[in-house]
């Protein structure tokens, strides 16, 4: 994390109650300002500069999904889109054999906290489907969504045991919850 650079423009807002009283004399105001400044400098989000640079150089990316120490993201490169899983500690992609297909278009991806399970909505052979990928097993399991239901986005619970799916059904956007073994 030593390579991180502070992000400009952060604001941390206290909801109510106001800030410190700054109208009790010059010295007090100066002290308060110094305290505030020190506090602000110590409380900025820090970009992952090295990794952000790597991502930028690798092409376009969308639909980020974070686990604890993992980033799943859809990479757009050379006219092709594929899911990439990045180990944030190592700051490098890990292999996900069997997850991507050259004839499939990934729509939405999600990862559990441990980076073990990934859920994916993809278009394949003219239909949209949800699949669950288990990295340790290198297995890919389609999940049936029922007739008349088109999945459009997924979010995997951090423990990997439940899946929330945004679907289009009978002209409505809805959310389905599926328990996973």
């Amino acid at each position: 994390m030593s390579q991180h650079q502070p992000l400009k423009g952060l604001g941390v807002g206290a909801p109510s109650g106001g800030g410190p009283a700054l109208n009790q004399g010059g010295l007090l105001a100066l002290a308060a300002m110094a305290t505030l400044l020190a506090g602000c400098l110590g409380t900025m989000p820090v970009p992952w500069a090295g990794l952000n640079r790597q991502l930028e150089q690798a092409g376009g990316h969308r639909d980020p999904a974070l686990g604890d120490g993992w980033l799943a993201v859809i990479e757009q490169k050379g006219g092709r889109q594929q899911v990439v899983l990045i180990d944030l500690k190592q700051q490098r992609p890990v292999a996900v054999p069997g997850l991507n297909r050259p004839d499939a278009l990934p729509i939405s991806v999600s990862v559990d906290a441990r980076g073990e399970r990934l859920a994916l909505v993809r278009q394949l052979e003219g239909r949209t489907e949800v699949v669950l990928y288990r990295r340790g097993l290198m297995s890919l399991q389609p999940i049936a969504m029922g007739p008349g239901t088109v999945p459009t986005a997924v979010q995997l619970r951090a423990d990997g045991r439940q899946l929330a799916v945004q679907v289009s059904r009978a002209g409505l956007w809805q959310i389905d919850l599926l328990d996973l073994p």
Partner: protein
Amino acid sequence: MARSKSARAAGLIGALVISLLGGGCQGTGLVDEGLFNRRSAAPASLASQQRRDPALSGNGRFLASIVEASGRSTVLLQEQPSGRVLPLRHLRSHLPHSSPALSWNGRYLALVLQQGHQPLAAIEDRLSGQLLRLPAPAGARIERLSLAPDGLTLALQLVQGGQQRVQLFDLSALLEPDRPGGLRSSNPLP
């Protein structure tokens, strides 16, 4: 005797098949149709109204989503499975909302909201009552976000120069971790 051997072989094959099925049919790529002792393979619709962008807390207790209220996209936080709607201190305005994300125990709710004409990433700390605002880097517009389950890393999907890109930010100097096992805070609400 031959018949006995044949029966035993059939039994072994049957046991093997049952064993494979009991093992979750790992790696077979079969379509899930409730074969594998799944507790609920059938999707359960939550409501008839328009809703999208689901986000579950890691412990499964909370579901955040975006609903259409009076034509505006608004974040809705519900307890599961009761569906009870939970109040949010700061997020009744700055519409439209999009892309909610919850930390492990639901302490942090991150989302994209509108401030003026600019989308802004924000994180409401439901324990301390604070709202953290994170503007887009210069020249970029925030489209989506993801918050790590422990709340310490934020990913922003940005559009800059017509290209979508993702940037990560370390929030560990700003937020306490929200990990499995319960909430902790150095600044609890009274």
